[in-house]
């Protein structure tokens, strides 16, 4: 091995090839290794319990709202099924909330002192992102499938591709926010307490239990600045063919998602050395 290195050192090009080959091989090894370890346990808790806990939260919120609505004897704000309306709101919103929280935790784990030098913090970010996307999708399939079996035919989306696009965009938005958070929390540790509280405000402002297009025009204008709201509406368009599209700008949320993701990546790369030296 060392002999080959010495032979390669003569020409610059082959040396570079070898270096890139080495880097790629490292990635190919590190990714599955981190993936298996993370899926075995999530921060010390057992796998099933950790993921179940995050999957149950949206269900619980939807259920409580449904009970509240029926006690107040109010109908679904749109469509026939109250549970479906709340479900189509709660899933994209919680996908954003949990993704933005998860990433914050996983970069913290990727700190210099608690990893091998060939693991990069971003390995942990992407492995956790993939795992989270997988469990969220499984949860969504179970929920909407269950609703269909309970006799709500609309629970199978009219346009599955649109639903998928909407969720992917919201996921990217959460990923960007999570990357940004992961940097902020290392500079400002109190953010760890602050952000989970702030991000749950998204439940109130993203059209979970009302149709934004039916709000008065002066209020509606302010709501329209919230990118997550457009994500929720986008997701609902997949289920309801005639869902009011007064406040549904898909390009707006896409633009937010891509800018935030790029910003998060740049911020992480730009502060990496500084933060590692600080820790």
């Amino acid at each position, binding site marked *: 091995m060392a002999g080959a290195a010495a032979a*390669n050192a003569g020409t610059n090009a082959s040396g570079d090839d070898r270096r890139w080959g080495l880097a790629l091989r490292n990635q190919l090894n*590190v990714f599955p*290794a981190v993936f298996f370890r993370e899926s075995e346990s999530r921060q010390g808790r057992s796998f099933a319990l950790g993921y179940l806990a995050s999957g149950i939260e949206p269900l619980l919120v939807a259920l409580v709202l449904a009970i509240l609505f029926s006690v107040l004897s109010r109908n679904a704000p749109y469509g026939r099924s109250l549970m479906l309306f709340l479900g189509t709101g709660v899933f994209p919103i919680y996908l954003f909330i949990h993704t933005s929280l998860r990433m914050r935790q996983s970069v913290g784990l990727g700190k210099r002192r*608690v990893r091998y*030098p060939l693991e990069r913090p971003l390995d942990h970010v992407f492995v956790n992102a993939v795992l989270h996307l997988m469990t969220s999708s499984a949860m969504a399939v179970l929920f909407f499938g269950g609703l269909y079996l309970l006799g709500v035919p609309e629970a199978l989306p009219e346009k599955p591709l649109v639903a998928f696009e909407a969720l992917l965009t919201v996921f990217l938005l959460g990923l960007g926010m999570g990357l940004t958070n992961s940097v902020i929390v290392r500079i400002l540790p109190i953010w760890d307490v602050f952000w989970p509280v702030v991000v749950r405000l998204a439940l109130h402002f993203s059209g979970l239990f009302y149709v934004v297009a039916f709000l008065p025009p002066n209020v509606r204008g302010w709501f329209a600045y919230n990118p997550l709201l457009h994500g929720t509406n986008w997701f609902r368009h997949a289920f309801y063919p005639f869902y009011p599209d007064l406040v549904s700008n898909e390009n707006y949320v896409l633009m937010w998602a891509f800018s935030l993701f790029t910003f998060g990546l740049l911020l992480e790369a730009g502060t990496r050395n500084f933060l590692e030296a600080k820790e």
Partner: protein
Amino acid sequence: MIKLRRLSHAYRNGVPIFSDVNLDIPTDRRVALLGHKNSGKSTLISLLGGMMQPTFGRIDRRVRVSFPAGYQGGFRLSHTGRQNIFFAARAYGANEREVFDFVRTVTDLNGALEKPMRDLSLQTRIGLSYALTYALPFDAYVFDNIVGPVGSDIPDFFHRCRAMFEARSRDSGLIISTRNASVAEQYCDCAVVIHERNLLFFDNVYDAIWYFERNGAAPDAATDGFPDQADEDFDEDRDEPSEFAS
């Protein structure tokens, strides 16, 4: 071959350790890294192992360089020894079973490897980490001060480490930092000497020791304010109090 190109490094308080170093360190020989107290030996070992990034310049590793032997940071203490060994083996592209069997044989830990790592003593974890370092296939192994833990609670472990060291030196490079000339003489055949924030390579370890000892009263050794002879007798224990407090 590890190539240092225009390498400069400073502590965060701005005190420079290396300035503008250009050097090729061979990775097919046993290299001693000789430096006096506070000359930056451990820092250089961390830089070579990829544990931190230099302030300026480039470290070109064309080969797989190990983490500093005995490194604890890769372990998840909530996971079992087996899970941790399997993870390291996967990440470094080695056969999991082979690495696991190697570590188990060398450390004589059988049942203990199935328990969470936090149930093991620190001494045992350090021993485990050394065994793991030797078990993984690297082209160059880096050591901070010592090739195996002294006073480990695994019986006869230091001698086993020496045997593994000899075995690995047949087809890999080894880099050991030390300020003890006899360690360099015992383990190495060439050396890099840290002198006045620069690195000098010597093809023959005896030339290096001669140069190292002649520059014993170098300004960087005098800055710590202690006479240097006093701590030569302590061997290397004082550099790593947490690891070798036996």
